[in-house]
């Protein structure tokens, strides 16, 4: 039997709930105004969770402690956890002091919300930072004009391939877009899928590299940055040109490209199932050590020589919370992290395919790294990557649009309209 008396009870409960929610709503969304304590070591929250990178960070922190001017405590969390929790860290009552993250648009987004510590003093007092390139300087400056970031290392993107395989197939690095298409034809005739891609599984973002590169080759880095910031539309004719050009090479893509994550695509590349892959140097971490010497890369072919040469070279580094209670210790730590010695320690401990931001620091010295340095130095403009130039929130819209394009290239019109609509929701949020 209805022992409920649901009607009246629910009404009263509803009223009570409405009143309480209004009160409670304030609690969950408020940014705390507390500061972290001023005692104890500087807390460094790191997302570099791969065992090698983690060990390298531990070496770095130990070296800092040995110097004696201060102590730092390293806290490593899984990369994906760090990404979802970063807003919570920054807004919590007792935030970590220093964080590993990326400069540019993503750091600027937090700086605009007054969550990042002003680092002008570090930049002006550190002899190392004074010698960093102009590009790095502007990358680490927020839109307010203040420095909020200290860079650590950077890596680059390129078309990677296996030297021995190219020799076996009798092909060599292309110099222009037409050369590139010829190369693809030749590889296809040998039964190899010319272009590998690993945009399946949990790594759909790999496809964005193609979008980025075609955009900066056809429309230039300036247009690309503006597009990602919301100043242009995804259904503009310029963006359409990018996809028209992409259709030219689409037949040469590995048909399994969207079904496998990039680690498996690396395996396919090294086994000779695919010819080359547009990927960043981090992919060398997924390669067996015996193959490392055999890896080489070439620049994404130039399409329009009138467009200033741009390359993707994402920078990693550190920023600090504005509500840290250990301001001076944080400054000291960041000054150390910008030195050549610190960056060399990190590079030695990690896989060695990254380049230090400090102009005096030595890199791993391999032929690949030397070529990479020249490759990046030759560029007039540097972009970071889709999610780093826009925001992590915009990346899934690109993933959806690009995987759909790779499967159904004819529906490009509808795909771009949907992409614009999804992106607007993010830009207007």
């Amino acid at each position, binding site marked *: 039997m209805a022992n*409920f008396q649901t009607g009246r009870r629910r009404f009263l409960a509803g009223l009570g709930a409405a009143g309480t929610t209004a009160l409670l709503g304030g*609690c*969950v969304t408020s940014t705390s105004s507390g500061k972290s304590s001023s005692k104890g070591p500087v807390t460094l929250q790191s997302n570099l969770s*791969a065992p090698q990178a983690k060990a390298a960070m531990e070496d770095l922190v130990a070296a800092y402690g040995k110097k004696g001017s201060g102590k730092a405590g390293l806290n490593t969390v899984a*990369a994906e956890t760090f990404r979802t929790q970063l807003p*919570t860290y920054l807004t919590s009552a007792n935030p970590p002091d220093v964080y590993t993250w990326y400069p540019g648009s993503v750091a600027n987004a937090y700086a605009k919300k007054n969550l990042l510590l002003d680092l002008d003093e570090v930049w002006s007092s550190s002899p190392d930072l004074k010698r960093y390139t102009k590009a790095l300087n502007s990358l680490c400056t927020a839109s307010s004009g203040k420095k909020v970031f200290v860079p650590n290392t950077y890596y680059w993107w390129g078309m990677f391939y296996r030297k021995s395989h190219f020799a076996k197939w009798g092909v060599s690095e292309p110099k222009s877009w037409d050369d590139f298409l010829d190369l693809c034809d030749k590889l296809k005739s040998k039964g190899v899928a010319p272009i590998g891609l690993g945009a399946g599984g949990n790594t759909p973002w790999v496809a964005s590299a193609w979008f980025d590169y075609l955009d900066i080759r056809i429309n230039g880095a300036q247009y690309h940055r503006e597009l990602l910031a919301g100043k242009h539309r995804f259904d503009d004719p310029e963006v359409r040109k990018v996809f028209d050009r992409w259709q030219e090479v689409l037949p040469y893509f590995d048909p399994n490209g969207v079904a496998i994550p990039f*680690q498996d695509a690396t*395996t396919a590349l090294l086994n000779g199932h695919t010819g080359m892959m547009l990927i960043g140097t981090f992919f060398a971490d997924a390669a067996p050590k015996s193959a490392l010497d055999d890896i080489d890369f070439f620049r994404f072919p130039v399409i329009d020589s009138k467009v200033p040469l741009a390359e993707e070279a994402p920078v990693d580094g550190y920023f600090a919370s504005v509500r840290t209670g250990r301001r001076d210790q944080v400054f000291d730590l960041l000054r150390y992290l910008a030195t050549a010695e610190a960056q060399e320690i990190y590079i030695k401990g990690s896989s060695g395919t990254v380049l230090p931001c400090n102009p005096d620091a030595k890199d791993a010295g391999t032929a690949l790294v030397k070529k990479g340095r020249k490759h990046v130095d030759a560029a007039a403009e540097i972009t970071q990557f889709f999610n780093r130039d826009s925001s992590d929130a915009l990346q899934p819209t690109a993933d959806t649009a690009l995987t759909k394009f790779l499967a159904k290239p004819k529906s490009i019109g509808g795909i771009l309209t949907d992409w614009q609509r999804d992106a607007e929701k993010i830009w207007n949020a």
Partner: protein
Amino acid sequence: MSANSTALRRKRAATAGFHLGAGALAVLWLLPIALVLVTSLRSFDDIAAHGLGSWPQSFTLGNFHQAWVDGGQQRALINSLLVTVPCVLVTLALAAMAAFGLSRYELPFRRSLLLLMLGGNLLPPQILLIPVSKLSELIGVFDTLPALIGVQIGFGVGFYVFVLHGFMRSIPVEIQQAAVVDGAGPWQIFWRIILPLTRPALAALSALSFTWIFNDLLWAITVLRSDTKMPITAALIGLQGQYVSMWNVIAAGSVIAAAPTVAVFLRFQRHFVAGLNLGAVK
């Protein structure tokens, strides 16, 4: 006699049939886990060169050591146990108490209360993540293991109350009446009569809740921040890098992480067996 021997043969055939059927089912079920085991015994270069689905071409036990030491699983396992054991005990105790009260007594609004408690479990936990982390900060227990224990208890108790209520409802009223006539108070009825009769359910729920709390990831990530306090599930995903993950070490870590829950299940499933006789009184 021929009748007996036919019956015996039929029984043997039935047993053989059972083992064949159940065995095939078990093997099918265990195949993916076998794949994890095989992966945990391969070297990283082997997987990188040949892919995950290929036949193994290497054998190494080093992954377990790496997961245990480098992956911090030793400390993480201790953290997991420190959280799980108290949680299971307290949650089931509270749930049994509440289910007892709601099912054996004529409390006003008891059905609504039951639905209310269950309702807490109908919420997708993901949406509670940010409010809970802010709440734990407010109380001052953020980044401590007691916070995780508290969250797990609060979030789990509604469900267990509901399940135990279902089991307790089926106990006949006569048993309780007899005890009241004999002069037992509510505590004695609870402790001496109802609780033993719900033992299969409690054993089942202990095994299940141990599994869930031990394997939980979301709440751990939400209320904990230091890597020294993370339980084993979080330590496991910590083995995944920014771009590249060492699948062999992760597989080894998963095997280590699964061991305690398997042990608990094997221990407790005997108690599903220790049936109950509804006809007994005290």
